[in-house]
């Protein structure tokens, strides 16, 4: 069995999102807690800006959750930068036990899965899940210099300047993390770095198929099925291939990368990507919809492309991963 049903579902007691100017100008702009038009967050390098975003996001999440000094007991965090330095430097000042994760853009779900499992098992009373990405630090590391004059492929995606933090706790009034499904590494031979959606979609399909097959549930049992950052291409591929497998998700399926930007007006080609993309959409937009009662039961699966530019130059293909988190308004939400 790959689906893990949490015996003591942890509650999200506080969450916060911090974004850059472009993300704030997008359709979800009003849902984010904090933004900086310049994306610098008062720092003199992009790497420091990303760390500052994580620091701000965790601080805000703790404040919104009215948390005391004892929270969080542990931090699970990650980002896209080499050696996970966005998280390490950003969270240094909190003086809390820390696990640095690398799941590429799946990191926020990975952090939520691990935090939820350890809280449910009773090892921690609460935990923080955080991830971030910054367009400028990611471009430098994965693509070309920022001012380099080039054209993007139509299938390319835009790394979000965003961070999201959630405080999970053994006690709280929800929403709750009721089930998780840790993803497997799936590589279907895509080597086009400009088509990450296609590279990651097979992982999402694997995770979703495993979930539906094991639980016997159908897509219509959920208010929303939300992938992390598959973008336009990955979203369409997932929808089509899931339908072929007998799971029609047409009415309930969306993608954080598609929600974050106005795709045609903001010149982001296939949509958003990056660890911060789904983290900010979940902690900003989705949690607000839970609070309003618009959502009761969702499947969130963040997808990551586990590649490095060096390995791709050596001829490797792009493996993907997708961790699934079921979020429910009710503690016994899995009964529904």
């Amino acid at each position, binding site marked *: 069995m790959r689906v893990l049903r949490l015996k003591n579902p942890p509650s999200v007691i506080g969450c916060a999102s911090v974004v850059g100017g472009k993300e704030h100008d997008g359709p979800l702009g009003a849902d984010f807690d904090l933004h900086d038009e310049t994306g610098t967050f008062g720092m003199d390098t992009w790497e420091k800006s990303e760390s500052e975003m994580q620091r701000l996001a965790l601080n805000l999440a703790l404040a919104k959750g009215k948390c005391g000094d004892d929270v969080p007991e542990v931090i699970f965090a990650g980002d896209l930068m080499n050696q996970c330095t966005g998280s390490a430097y950003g969270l240094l000042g909190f003086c809390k036990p820390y696990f640095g994760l690398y799941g590429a853009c799946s990191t926020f779900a990975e952090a939520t899965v691990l935090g939820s499992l350890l809280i449910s098992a009773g090892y921690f009373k609460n935990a923080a899940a955080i991830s971030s990405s910054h367009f400028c630090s990611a471009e430098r590391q994965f693509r070309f210099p*920022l001012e*380099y*004059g080039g*054209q993007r492929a*139509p299938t390319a995606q835009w790394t979000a300047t965003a961070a999201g933090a959630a405080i999970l706790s053994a006690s709280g009034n929800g929403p709750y993390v009721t089930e998780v499904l840790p993803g497997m590494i799936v590589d279907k031979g*895509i080597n086009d770095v400009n088509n990450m959606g*296609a590279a990651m979609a097979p992982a999402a399909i694997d995770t979703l198929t495993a979930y539906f097959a094991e639980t016997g549930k159908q897509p219509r049992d959920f208010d929303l099925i939300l992938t992390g950052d598959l973008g336009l291409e990955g979203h369409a*591929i997932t929808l089509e291939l899931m339908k*072929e497998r007998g799971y029609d998700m047409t009415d309930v399926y969306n993608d954080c990368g598609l929600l974050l930007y106005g795709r045609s007006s903001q010149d982001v080609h296939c949509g958003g990507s990056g660890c911060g993309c789904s983290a900010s959409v979940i902690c900003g937009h989705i949690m607000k919809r839970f609070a309003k009662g618009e959502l009761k039961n969702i499947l969130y699966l963040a997808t990551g492309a586990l590649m490095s530019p060096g390995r791709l130059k050596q001829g490797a293909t792009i493996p993907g991963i997708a961790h699934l988190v079921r979020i429910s308004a009710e503690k016994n939400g899995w009964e529904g």
Partner: protein
Amino acid sequence: MNLDTNEYGKFVRARAPKSPVLKNCLCAFLVGGGICAFAEALFHGYLALHITEENVKTLVPVTLIFLAALLTGFGVFDDVAKIAGAGTLVPITGFANAVASPAIDNKSEGLVLGVGAQMFTVAGPVIVYGVLTSVIYGFIYWIWGIAV
């Protein structure tokens, strides 16, 4: 469809939107042509200032490199290049941008290990293989000179 690697690759390639080649070619032609026309105007402008033709042939590319690097610094070059594509890439302006942009990016890592070491990460291959090609060409030219 079973997610067989080959089949999936074909499926993905078949459905991926293609770059608008015709539009890109037209933009590249107009902007690239514009840059060349501007260079031609510079050429005649410098000649009109009674500079020798030999010096003008150096001054024109120097001016273009300077302007491209300056516009890169102002953050304008990439906005134009996004539309122009090969139009800004192929002339010497593209080369100037390829050197200036990593220099700006890596400034935070210091003048030696940042700017100095990483300035040629994009343009480096062009220099290496450009020089190599020149050497090979020169060698053939030399052999040809002896033979004839």
